[in-house]
């Protein structure tokens, strides 16, 4: 009974346990500062600015002296989408060295580092390149999507929103931005393909992708 009561209280009092608060001015406060802020309100009718750690919702954050630039949200989302294909591909590549080759290296009493640089990294290249291709196009998608949702100026995502608003007047216009995004994605994976043909120039052609 006590347990259920505790749970119930937890659920109903959840609002008061919020860590972050925003006020009508768009200022963001941490839970620990609320009492001060409230008491400041009561004392002189203004909010104690020194305790505010964020300025606005929507991509504007201050952490100490570091001001979060608007483009950083977009590049973090791009990085995030590129990270997993590349990480998984690299891991698979690094563990792909044939057992016989690993045995050969240990028969030469090669150190861990020597095995890594002389065997594992070169053997990982055929796995890394397709991963980089996925990562490059994924990063473009991530950045465009982030630009759409944050409305970052000067980006393709922003253009898509702006041109979409004019879609009733000029339906073709929005496609210019969409094709621009597609072209950017293709360019990125094209660059990776060039890098690939450089790295794999001396390898048997069957294994290259």
């Amino acid at each position, binding site marked *: 009974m006590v347990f259920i009561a505790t749970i119930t209280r937890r659920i109903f009092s959840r609002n008061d346990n919020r860590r972050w608060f925003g006020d009508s001015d768009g200022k963001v406060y941490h839970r620990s500062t609320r009492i001060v802020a409230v008491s400041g309100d009561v004392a002189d009718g203004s909010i104690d600015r020194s305790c505010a750690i964020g300025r606005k919702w929507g991509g504007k954050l201050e952490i100490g002296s570091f001001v979060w630039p608007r483009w950083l949200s977009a590049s973090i989302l791009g990085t995030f989408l590129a990270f997993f294909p590349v990480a998984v591909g690299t891991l698979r590549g690094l563990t792909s060295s044939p057992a016989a080759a690993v045995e050969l290296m240990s028969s030469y*009493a090669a150190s861990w580092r020597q095995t890594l640089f002389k065997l594992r990294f070169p053997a990982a290249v055929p796995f890394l390149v397709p991963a980089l291709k996925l990562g490059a196009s994924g990063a473009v998608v991530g950045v465009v999507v982030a630009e759409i949702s944050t409305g970052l100026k000067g980006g393709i995502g922003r253009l898509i929103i702006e041109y979409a608003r004019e879609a009733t007047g000029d339906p073709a216009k929005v496609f210019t931005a969409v094709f621009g995004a597609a072209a950017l994605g293709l360019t990125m994976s094209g660059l990776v393909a060039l890098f690939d043909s450089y790295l794999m120039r*001396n390898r048997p052609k069957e294994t290259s992708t």
Partner: protein
Amino acid sequence: MSAAANISAVEVNGASKIFNSGTANQVDALLDVNLTIAPGEFVSLIGPSGCGKSTLLRLIANLLEPTQGEISVNGKTSAQARLDQDYGMAFQQAGLFDWRTVSKNIELPLELKGWDKKKRESRAAEMLDLVKLQDFGNMYPWQLSGGMQQRVAIARALAAHPPLLLMDEPFGALDEMTREYMQGELLRICAETSTTVVFVTHSIPEAVYLSNRVVVMSPRPGRILEIISVNLGSKRSELTRAADGFFKSITAVREALRGTHAQHVASTAIRGAEDR
């Protein structure tokens, strides 16, 4: 380069190897193996699949630790011998690195030893001469035929001039003609470099043609059943393959193997009866 001649190249004393010891799938790979190999000797290990001949080779190479017993190579422990690169190794798959040229593949063990570039290159050229691939140094392994790749692998194994060469069915994936040619080449190379060889094979004629002694092994648990000396002289050629002594030795090895085979069948038959 090696120490005094009275130190044996390989000495295996009462070596046993048990995999997954104490569990349900325990495998007694080797049981109480004793083997002494003199410097300059060519010894083949032969036996049916799963008789532990590759395991014995890996014990000598210190790629596996024996469960029991001692192994010394060149008068050192096998672990020290591995650290000193006292042996070279060649496997059934040539195992060359695709991203390195033939020369660079041969230089690999020398790089790991920290030799400087000039010394490495001259040694690689010397080894390419030895295996008669002078013109192929700048090509990539995948541009060569299987036999050529295997010759590069032998050159790589011998690049640091180790006194001992360990080979695990190196010609197993080659066609019969290439195989016979490679056997002749191997004998020539070993004679030129006076290398001791331990050679694992499935093929009776191959074992007899190459070896001074053939070690016949039995499966589960792997034991040495018989060691057969082959008296075909030190100079062997294609004529050796037609000699009487060649066929006599082949028959001797075959009978030794048959013995193991008959025993093996008998023991499983009895076990089968018990199960029922």
